[in-house]
C-alpha cells in the first residue's frame, strides 16, 4: 500500500487490507490442496507444506543461509557498482553530445545484446568466483540507469541552466544545483527497473558456474529432481528482489518527496 493511495482512498482502505489478506490465505489454500485434487503429482507442483518442510531441511542441511547471503551480497555489490557507473556515464554522455554521437552505435549494440550471454565469458575470465556474477549484475543494471540519466540531462530545459548561469553559476554549481537534482525522478525510474534486473544478472552467473549461491542450489535441485527445493530457491530469489526494490522505493519517497503524489509511482 503506498502513501498516495492511502491518502486518496481512505474510506476503502480497511476493506482493501482485509481483501488482500483473504486473497493470500485463499492462494495458500489453493496451493496446498488444489494440485492434489486435480491429480498433479508433488514432483510437478509440491504443496505449500512440502515446500516449507524443504525450506527447513535446507536451512539445516544445505547451508541455505550462507548461499542466500552470498547471492544477496553479489546482488547488492553489483547493483551499487552498476548504478554508480550508470550515473557517471549517463551524466558524462548527457553533457557531451559529441561523445554520445560517437559512442551511440556501441552503446546501442551493448544495450541490445542479451547481457546474460556474457556470463560464460566472464566465468572463463575470472573462474568460479563471485566476480563474474557481480560483473553480469553490473552490466545488466548499468543500462537502464545510464539511459534514464542521459535522457534526463537531455530533457532539462536549457533556460533553467541559462538562469543559473545568469546568476554567475560556474560549471560545478550548474551540475550540483540544477542538473543533478533534475535527473533524480528519471534516475529513480531507472533504479526500479535495475532493482528487478539485478537478481537476474547474479542468478544467471551462478547457474552457469560455481558451487555457491542460490543459483547453484537451483541447479542442484533441478539435478536431483527436487521440485520443492527449486520452489524454495525461486521464493528466496524473489524475496531478495523485493528487499532491493523496497529499498529503492523507500529512498525514492525520501528523495522525491517534492513531487505531487499523482506523479509518484505506487510501491
Amino acid at each position, binding site marked *: 500500500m503506498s502513501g498516495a493511495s492511502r491518502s486518496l482512498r481512505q474510506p476503502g482502505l480497511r476493506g482493501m487490507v482485509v481483501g488482500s489478506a483473504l486473497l493470500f490465505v485463499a492462494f495458500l489454500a489453493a496451493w496446498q490442496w488444489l494440485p492434489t485434487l486435480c491429480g498433479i503429482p508433488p514432483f510437478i507442483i509440491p504443496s505449500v507444506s512440502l515446500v516449507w518442510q524443504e525450506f527447513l531441511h535446507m536451512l539445516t542441511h544445505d547451508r541455505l543461509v550462507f548461499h542466500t547471503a552470498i547471492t544477496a551480497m553479489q546482488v547488492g555489490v553489483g547493483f551499487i557498482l552498476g548504478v554508480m557507473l550508470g550515473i557517471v556515464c549517463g551524466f558524462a554522455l548527457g553533457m557531451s553530445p559529441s561523445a554520445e554521437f560517437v559512442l551511440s552505435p556501441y552503446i546501442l549494440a551493448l544495450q541490445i545484446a542479451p547481457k546474460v550471454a556474457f556470463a560464460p565469458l566472464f566465468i572463463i575470465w575470472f573462474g568460479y568466483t563471485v566476480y563474474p556474477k557481480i560483473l553480469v549484475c553490473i552490466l545488466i543494471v548499468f543500462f537502464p540507469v545510464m539511459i534514464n540519466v542521459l535522457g534526463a540531462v537531455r530533457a532539462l*530545459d536549457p*533556460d*533553467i541552466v*541559462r*538562469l*543559473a*548561469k*545568469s*546568476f*554567475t*553559476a560556474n560549471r560545478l*554549481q550548474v551540475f550540483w*544545483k*540544477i542538473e543533478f*537534482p*533534475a535527473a*533524480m525522478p528519471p534516475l529513480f525510474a531507472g533504479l526500479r527497473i535495475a532493482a528487478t534486473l539485478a537478481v537476474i544478472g547474479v542468478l544467471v552467473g551462478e547457474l552457469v558456474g560455481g558451487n555457491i549461491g542460490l543459483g547453484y542450489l537451483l541447479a542442484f535441485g533441478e539435478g536431483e529432481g527436487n521440485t520443492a527445493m527449486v520452489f524454495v530457491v525461486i521464493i528466496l530469489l524473489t524475496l531478495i528482489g523485493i528487499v532491493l526494490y523496497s529499498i529503492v522505493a523507500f529512498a525514492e519517497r525520501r528523495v522525491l518527496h*517534492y*513531487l*505531487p503524489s499523482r506523479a509518484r509511482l505506487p510501491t
Partner: protein
Amino acid sequence: MTATANAPRIEFRDVTKRFANPHSTARQGNGFVVAVEGVSLSIADGEVVSLIGPSGCGKSTLLNMGSGLDPVSAGEVHVDGELVTKPNRHVAFMLQKDLLLPWRTIVENVELGQEIQGVSSRERRTLALELLAKCRLTDFVDHYPHQLSGGMRQRAALARTLAVDPSVLLMDEPFSALDAQTKMVLQQDLGRTLADTGKTALFITHDLVEAVALSDRILVMSQRPGRIIEEIDVDIGDRDNPMKRRQHPKVGDYVVRLMNLLHVDQAAA
C-alpha cells in the same frame, strides 16, 4: 522621468547579432541570419523601457546579449559602465516561464541566485522572506512550486530576480502566459516594486497596453534583421500605478500609434 546627466545603467552600442543558419547549405552562400542589426539604446538609472516588435525580430536576442549569456557579433554592451562579456551580478533576467525548480520550496527558489553568489544562508533567508512578503507569498514560502498558481509562481520568480539585487532587470514577456486579470495584478506588483526599489528595467512584451502602462519609454523594433525604428516617450503620470495608468484617456492614442508602427492592421487584412 528624464535621463539625467547620470551615466546610463545599461547601454547597447551599435550591437549586431548574427547566427549561423542551420538550414543553409553551401550552395546558398553565406550561412548567416542577422537577428539584430546596429541597435543602440541607453537606459538611465531608474528608467523602465519596453521593447516591442514583431515575433522573431530579435528582442530576446538583445536581452540575452544584455545578460551576457550570448556574445555580441559586433558592437558593445555596457552595464554600470562595465563592458559585458559574460554573465555578471549587475543584471538579472526573468522569462515567460517561471523556471522555478520543482525540488526546491518557494523560499529556496528565491534564494537560488544568492546561494550561487555565495551569500550566507542566514542573510539570504532574511532577504528572501522579506521579498516574498512584498510579493504577498508569505503563506507559501515552504510550499513547492506545483502547489502554486501561475500568477503566484511568477511573483516568486520576480522575488528571485530581485533577490540578487541587480541594477538592471531584463524581462522577456514575463506575464504573457497569465490570464488577463492575473496579468493586471502582476503588472501592478511590478510597477510598484520597480518604483519602490528604483530599479532599471528593460521589458519585452507583445502586449501594447502593458508596454504603455508600465514604461517611461517604448522602443519599437522592425522585422528581422531587428532595428529600432521608433522611440516613444510615454508622457502619462502614475508609472508606479499601472492599474490607474491604464485608465488614462491618452493610453488609446499610444496604442493606436504602436499598432500603426507594427502594421497590425495589415497582418489582419
